């Protein structure tokens, strides 16, 4: 069985038979963008369903089970409902910024998806600053949340947005620094080369002790960056209504909601790529069948997504001061020490090579 997954070149070759070079270039870009949009809109919907099923499982309920077999069409029905709903708004809102905010959030999270290597060939955009690009893009999404909270002209929305800003700016540091710790091992920022390095053992094994610390810090900070429980003060229902998206309805609300789930997927996918070898199979058992890489990549990602859902339904919510204490007094100093430790280990050649 021979499936070609190098989508960019395949589509480009197919299109260039019919049209000129420039047009084929643009056509290939647009086609790939549409494919990614379609896949991840649906994937986002099914992540919502997964979240509800996991929540039900943790709380000894059944969960959605009416629409379609095992409730599989439930979120499709929800999406249809959201599309057909009226778009409401407050009278004195700043209309331009109010309408702009959801697009900031969704576009920044969709842009990040382009750089992930799903298999050796299935990667839309292999930029040479891979990880750094992801960090840069993820720092833009918070602007959408701040704008949405402010432009709604609602004090609870504003409080939610300010909390989100504080939280995201603080935890971005930990995400960045824990990834820098792993870059010390790989010596490159390009995601495809990072996976090449891991053919001698996944980075969490190569870097052993500091790599495990970096992974734990990364998962804590990543959960905080996606504004999920136990760090969900942004939309703490009992205090703030729905937080920064209180005034949004219909599709605009759906953008925020979808972006949250795609962000969760992105955090898990970065962790799977950097720490657990991306599309590489354990011990190279399926090395002869390259297209199975997508199965391994998604498998690892969904285990980590499940871990984040597990956090959500296990831990109680933190207070704002506890959240900032955790980041600035514990995670950040620990992270800086961890970088020095990792540098020492790489310098002395104490990494484990399988």
């Amino acid at each position, binding site marked *: 069985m021979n499936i070609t997954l190098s989508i960019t070149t395949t589509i480009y070759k197919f299109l260039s038979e019919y049209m000129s070079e*420039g047009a084929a*270039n*643009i056509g290939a870009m647009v086609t790939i963008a549409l494919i990614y949009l379609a896949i991840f809109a649906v994937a986002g919907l099914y992540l919502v369903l997964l979240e509800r099923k996991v929540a039900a499982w943790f709380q000894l309920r059944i969960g959605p089970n009416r629409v379609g077999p095992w409730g599989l069409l439930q979120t499709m029905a929800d999406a249809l409902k959201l599309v057909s709903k009226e778009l409401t708004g407050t009278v*004195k*809102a*700043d209309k*331009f*910024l109010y309408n*702009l905010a959801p697009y900031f959030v969704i576009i920044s999270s969709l842009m990040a998806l382009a750089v992930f290597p799903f298999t050796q060939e299935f990667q839309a955009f292999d*930029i*040479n*600053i891979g990880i*750094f*690009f992801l*960090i*840069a*893009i993820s*720092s*833009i999404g*918070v*602007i959408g949340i*701040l*704008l949405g909270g*402010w*432009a709604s*002209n609602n004090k609870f929305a*504003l409080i939610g*947005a*300010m909390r989100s*800003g504080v939280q995201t*700016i603080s935890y*971005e540091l930990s995400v960045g620094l824990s990834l820098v710790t792993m870059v010390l091992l790989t*010596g*490159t*920022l390009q995601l495809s080369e990072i996976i090449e390095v891991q053919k001698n053992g996944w980075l969490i094994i190569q870097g052993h002790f500091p790599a495990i610390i970096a992974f734990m810090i990364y998962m804590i900070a990543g959960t905080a960056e996606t504004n999920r429980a136990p760090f969900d003060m942004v939309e703490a229902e009992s205090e703030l209504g729905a937080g920064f998206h209180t005034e949004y309805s219909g599709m605009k609300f759906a953008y925020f909601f979808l972006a949250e789930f795609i962000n969760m997927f992105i955090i898990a996918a970065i962790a799977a790529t950097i720490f657990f070898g991306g599309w590489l199979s354990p011990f190279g058992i399926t090395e002869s069948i390259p297209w199975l890489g997508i199965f391994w990549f998604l498998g690892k990602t969904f285990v980590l997504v499940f871990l984040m859902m597990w956090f959500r339904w296990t831990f109680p919510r933190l207070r704002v001061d506890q959240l900032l204490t955790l980041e600035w007094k514990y995670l950040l100093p620990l992270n800086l020490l961890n970088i020095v430790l990792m540098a020492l280990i790489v310098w002395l050649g104490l990494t484990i090579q399988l």
Partner: protein
Amino acid sequence: MERYIFYILAAIIIVSAIASVTSKKMLRSVIYLLFTLCGIAGIYFLIDYNFLAAIQLTVYAGGIIVLIIFSVVLIHHIEMELEVAKLSKKIITGLACAIGLGVFLTTIYSHQFNVVENFNSTTTEQIGLKLLSYEAGGFILPFEVISILLLASMIGAIVIAKGKKLTDKNESK
């Protein structure tokens, strides 16, 4: 195709720069400024300076704009509009801008720009090695000076933030 992308980006930069200075609502002009900065990052991506583009996005779009939004959100109500400046101030600002633009344009047009052949994109590794090299053409001295500047401003920020608490403790001793 690069030419069309450049024109699109240039149009975005110019339009949003003008909108940024003419808008009377404070937060809107911040957002137009963000579009300008993102457009500049787009031009860096276009000429294959990926590292510089990502720095532009992280530092300007992700850092500085978020800080400006924070300060605007803290002090500014949604119904407030900026006042129109006096005519004398407008004239002075216009003259200053014209002089600045003149300096830039004369510098740009007095040099000949050559088309680079066999262009290789710069990797992050090369940038890092250059930053820390102490041989001729290395940037270790400015790098260290900037580190000290950042350290000083960090200590200054802590002193300002502690403010009264710091002096009270010293006096009680």
